[in-house]
């Protein structure tokens, strides 16, 4: 009886340790993500508070009284549990701007006028009012204030699409050749396609500036996608070659015997079977091109990519962490969507090609 209880205790202890470990692991992975998501919804005032609020407020409680220079605006602080004075001004326009930009709260000129007249007409020292938060304020500001965020987003999508197109067509064909044909210098080539990946973007960026400038592709999406393709092709060859090797040649030969041309056999048999591998490559290429910043900073001037724009919001006097977070999330979303879009194929990739 005693040993039975002991066993139960040991089992419970083991499980506890296991779940503690698991929780720590998950927290380690998810907390930073949670942090940046939550930060992207905080108002500027909240973002610079200490300790940082865990969740953004959904409404703002404000108090309007009389100050030395005019009206005195106070805001309810969720942490200190008191109204804190934030502004003393007679300029209503300034106050409206402050509420919108710093407190991330929806208010109109009329509403503010209404509150001031309510204060004037009452005997109280102050009036209280509550306005809803504009949760997407940071995103709105990011795209409105940041110099050409939207065109940069479109450019980044263009670059990613172009890079996928170039890398998949060249890399995929090369991967097919590596998988199917025997030719001179195959081993050397196999190594050298990965060799180009050993050079960091920064290292080759400067010569690239000259080369692209000569080709009239400096500060052009096509130029950047060419640069990204250099590394992406190597990776694509690597992935697709192993995929094509996993597809028996006899499947294609059978198609040829049964009436298909070499091209038809490839399109109808090999390509559909290679789709998971191609999708995985496409995902890698997309993420690489989409997230790349260093080379993009060097190789663009008036036409920055989205990652450059996000990077810039972190710098300089205009740098605001909540804006940068909103930019970061805006940048992550397309990558997440794209990966989910390809999920079906990627999952098949984990299981390998079944033939």
């Amino acid at each position, binding site marked *: 009886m005693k040993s039975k209880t002991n066993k139960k205790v040991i089992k419970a202890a083991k499980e506890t340790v296991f779940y503690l470990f698991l929780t720590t692991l998950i927290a380690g992975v998810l907390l930073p993500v949670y942090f940046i998501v939550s930060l992207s919804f905080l108002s500027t005032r909240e973002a610079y508070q200490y300790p940082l609020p865990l969740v953004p407020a959904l409404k703002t409680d404000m108090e309007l009284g009389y100050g030395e220079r005019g009206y005195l605006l106070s805001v309810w602080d969720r942490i200190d549990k008191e109204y804190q004075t934030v502004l003393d001004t007679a300029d209503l326009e300034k106050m409206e701007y402050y509420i919108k930009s710093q407190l991330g709260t929806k208010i109109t000129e009329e509403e503010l006028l209404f509150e001031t007249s309510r204060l004037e007409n009452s005997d109280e020292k102050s009036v209280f009012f509550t306005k809803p938060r504009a949760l997407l304020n940071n995103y709105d500001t990011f795209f409105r204030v940041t110099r050409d965020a939207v065109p940069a987003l479109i450019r980044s999508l263009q670059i990613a699409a172009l890079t996928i197109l170039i890398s998949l067509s060249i890399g995929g064909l090369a991967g097919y050749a590596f998988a199917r044909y025997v030719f001179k210098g195959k081993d050397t080539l196999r190594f050298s396609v990965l060799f180009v990946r050993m050079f960091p973007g920064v290292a080759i960026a400067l010569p690239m500036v000259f080369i692209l400038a000569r080709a009239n592709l400096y500060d052009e999406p096509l130029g950047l996608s060419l640069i990204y393709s250099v590394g992406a092709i190597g990776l694509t060859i690597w992935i697709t070659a192993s995929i094509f090797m996993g597809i*028996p040649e*006899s*499947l294609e*030969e*059978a*198609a*040829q*015997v*049964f*009436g*298909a*041309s*070499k091209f*038809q056999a490839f399109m*109808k*048999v090999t390509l*559909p*079977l290679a789709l998971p591998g191609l999708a995985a490559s496409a995902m890698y290429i997309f993420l690489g091109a989409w997230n790349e910043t260093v080379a993009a900073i060097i190789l663009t001037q008036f036409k920055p990519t989205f990652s450059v724009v996000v990077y810039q919001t972190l710098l300089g006097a205009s740098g605001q962490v909540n804006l940068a977070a909103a930019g970061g999330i805006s940048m992550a979303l397309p990558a997440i969507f794209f990966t989910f879009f390809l999920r079906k194929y990627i999952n098949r990739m984990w299981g390998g090609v*079944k*033939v």
Partner: protein
Amino acid sequence: MATLEIKNLTKKFGRKIIAVDNISLEVHDGEFLVLLGPSGCGKTTTMRMIAGLEEVTDGTILIGDVDVTELPPRKRNVSMVFQNYAIWPHMTVYENISYALKLKHMGKSEIDQVVHDVASMTNISELLERLPAQLSGGQQQRVAVARAIAVSPKVFLMDEPLSNLDAKLRVSMRTELKTIHASAKATTVFVTHDQSEAMSIADRIVIMQDGKIVQIGSPEEVYEKSANLFVADFIGTPPTNFFDVKLKKTDETLHLVHPHFDLPLSPKNTTLLQGYAKEHLVLGVRPENISLVNEQAKIMSTTVLVVEPQGSHQVIAFKLDKDIIKMVAPSQLKMNTGATIHLNFKQEALRFFDPDSTLAIGD
């Protein structure tokens, strides 16, 4: 259906490797021809050249009197069953069978008709909507065969189609392939390294070694009249027993002298060896041509080494010096290891080979 003719076909890989060395053969209309040989003998390469999957280094291939040597596979009107079946895994059984027909621009209802015909012929009618991954090895094999006969080709090629099946299924599929062949009347070339498969399925067997054709003949011919030592050894289980013997002439009869026996030859065999000038030759005796006799009729006596019961018969092994000799005896005879047996050879079935050229003497 059509005839298939191969003239002086040669295939070289690179400069040095000669996979197929100047072979010629003809497959008659509706014939079931088996290319047989050990791995690396060039039989699969030959078949792939017929299919058009391998370029021809030299020589011509004629299908129904049309030179197809330079044509791509799709224009040769052949079909093929691959060793690994090569069924397209992303298509259903129906799509697998109908794909070739679609490429031929056949009408939808006609395709449907053909698919159902071949499916019932190969016993896969209820599997048409399945994907290959949901089929057993034997079923995949049937799909591959159905796909191949659906196109009603001029020549039907099979590249070791049974080698991936388990032993029992392999034997039953042999019978089925033979039945299908009988009803489809397709000119067929079948590649295998399994001699018993070849023997049981073929109209004629082509035995290849090192890229050359060694012998062409019916299963009986290659078994009873093996053209050389290689064929005699390759065909038959257990294989032919070989004895290095000396020729000795006493009176009018020839004697074959071996350390363990002295065999006087029958008049017919004596005539056969009349023209043979050398002193040494190799005597080939099939296991069933060694007979157990009483002491008076024996040419040698020995003790049993191992008895291998086979049900219908038994294989008795004994040792002569270093060589293990195998013979076949009815299973009714009680045999034990160590028992003394008296043996003689059946004169009419003896084969003689030249030890230098390895060729059979007297054919």
